[in-house]
């Protein structure tokens, strides 16, 4: 099982712990990562570049897809935003005429997107390529007794028609499936597929912080000891800005936010330090010590 690894900007910037944890977890899961193919791939545009020019965004993604196709490997993402923006670009480029026009801009680099590349998030790859039963067999330290709240990130759940939910209906509850497979319990709460507030952080911080406090506090109300997200941008807001949100709402929050591979890594028996659980703003000690108590 080999993939062309598209790490995205954030796992190489403000969330290096995600990159490290992904590498560690993939090793244990038998997922071989080719880190060379995508070295020259650009940012997806994150929906922001698309505000200025959607076609340019699609061109950058077509370029990335072409690189993947040339390597003969499927593309793996680890960010809900990357995944969603790529899926949307792909959906638009099913229009052959449009794809050809986009490709004409790539001819100088001798690249052509043939419409075959199928970028998929690690979250989906575990369920669809490894299979949830096989994945369960690899769990050596079930997270029994831990209640974990899922937080998807908008772009991996909407728009559902671009994300292949019809063909792969389990994608709708993939995060809950993983939480249960690692032996933990799902702390279900209404905000799990809402916005984390990150996109408006520099525009309307008050609203952004309100979103952080609403989600984290309602997850805690459901008994969550931590939250898990497949999106590093959500992580930046929910973890990095949690102290700011806590100050605004005037009450302590203190809910550790884990990246998806960190949660999986714990259940695979990887030591918390190798998963960089110490690199978070909100202390994750609670999760680690709760685990030490479980047999």
């Amino acid at each position, binding site marked *: 099982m080999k993939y062309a690894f598209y790490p995205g900007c954030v796992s190489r*910037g*403000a969330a290096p712990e995600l990159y490290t944890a992904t590498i560690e977890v993939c090793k244990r899961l038998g997922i071989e990562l080719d880190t060379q193919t995508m070295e020259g791939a650009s940012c997806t545009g994150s929906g922001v570049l698309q505000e200025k020019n959607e076609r*340019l965004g699609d061109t950058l993604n077509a*370029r990335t897809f072409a690189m993947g196709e040339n390597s003969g490997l499927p593309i793996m993402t680890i960010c809900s935003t990357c995944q969603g923006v790529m899926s949307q670009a792909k959906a638009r480029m099913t229009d052959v005429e449009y794809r050809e026009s986009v490709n004409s801009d790539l001819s*100088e680099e001798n690249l052509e997107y043939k419409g075959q590349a199928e970028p998929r998030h690690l979250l989906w790859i575990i369920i669809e390529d490894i299979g949830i039963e096989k994945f369960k067999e690899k769990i050596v330290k079930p997270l029994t007794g831990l209640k974990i709240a899922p937080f998807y990130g908008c772009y991996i759940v*909407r728009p559902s028609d671009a994300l292949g939910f019809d063909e792969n209906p389990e994608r709708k509850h993939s995060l809950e499936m993983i939480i249960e497979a690692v032996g933990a319990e799902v702390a279900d709460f209404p905000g799990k597929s809402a916005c984390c507030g990150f996109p*408006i952080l520099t525009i309307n911080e008050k609203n952004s912080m309100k979103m952080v406090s609403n989600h984290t506090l309602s997850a805690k109300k459901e008994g969550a000891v931590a939250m898990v997200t497949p999106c590093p941008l959500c992580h930046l807001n929910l973890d990095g800005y949690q102290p700011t949100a806590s100050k605004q709402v005037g009450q302590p929050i203190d809910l550790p936010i884990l990246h998806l591979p960190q949660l999986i890594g714990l259940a695979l028996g990887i030591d918390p330090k190798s998963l960089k659980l110490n690199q978070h703003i909100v202390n994750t000690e609670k999760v680690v010590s709760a685990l030490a108590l479980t047999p």
Partner: protein
Amino acid sequence: MDVDLNIARFNPDAEGKSPYRQEFNIEVNETDTVLDGLIKIREEVDGTLALRCSCRSAICGSCAMRVNGQAVLACNTKITDLVSNKNKSINVEPIGNMKIIKDLIVEFDTHWEKIKAIDPWIKTDSSPPEAEYIASNESMVELAGVMGCIQCGACVSDCTVLAVDETFLGPAALAKAYRFIADPRDEANSQRLKDLNEPSGIWDCTRCMQCVEVCPKGVDPMGRIMKLRDFAMEAGFKNTNGARHAEVFSEIIRNNGVLNEFWLPVKTFGMFNIPEMLKLAPIGLKMVMRGKMPPIFYEKIPGYKNITKLFEKTKVL
């Protein structure tokens, strides 16, 4: 086939006035919609159940409600699509972000006020043409998509910004604003864009796509808001954090191929914006202490010049 409709009830005249849940087990046909189920309850089980409906054909927009946590038109939501052998329970609630009057009926006043606030009529300065206004087919086809809005309130219900800030104009009103700005006959674009550029306008949208997902008519409110942002920037309204963010983001990608999270907020606020820099500093410091500060001098991707060229070709920036 029998299903359980778990309905959110609220009667303002009842003592205590608190909302409660009530479950109804009913027999339904395979072709029945959630609305059919609700009408059956009202007619055969509990005549006090309050709901709005009219056309039953997804045209009038009266029966928007939240079914299993998502805003839909009850009349085009089939019960069989929601239940399985394992789960025959369906949650029905009034739409969100509006005040509940009774059971599934909500107060639309705030919604209409926002629609009115964007001046939903064509404004012209010049004297009317001698015959009819001529608009290109192309421009009207583009507008037809947004004119398909039936004002059902589904997008307003599930908007994640309205959930935390009732002053936000919201997806329905902003889509309506787009309908006039993109109309070739309208001559008030500049003023309209200036107004929408204010707080609670186009830049407060989080791009979460809830409105796109729940709209039963394919209006794509968020897509319209993104176009309005583009129009606003092109019209020269660039002095907002939102516009600067989009500008700086694009510039970083153009020059490096990838994003640099250190420079994005710094350049968006402006390095000499002392209050904002002071607010960023402690967060930056905490990140440094945890070993996760993005590098100040970001590595460019190999072949970044090709990305710059693509930007030049598309004439962005």
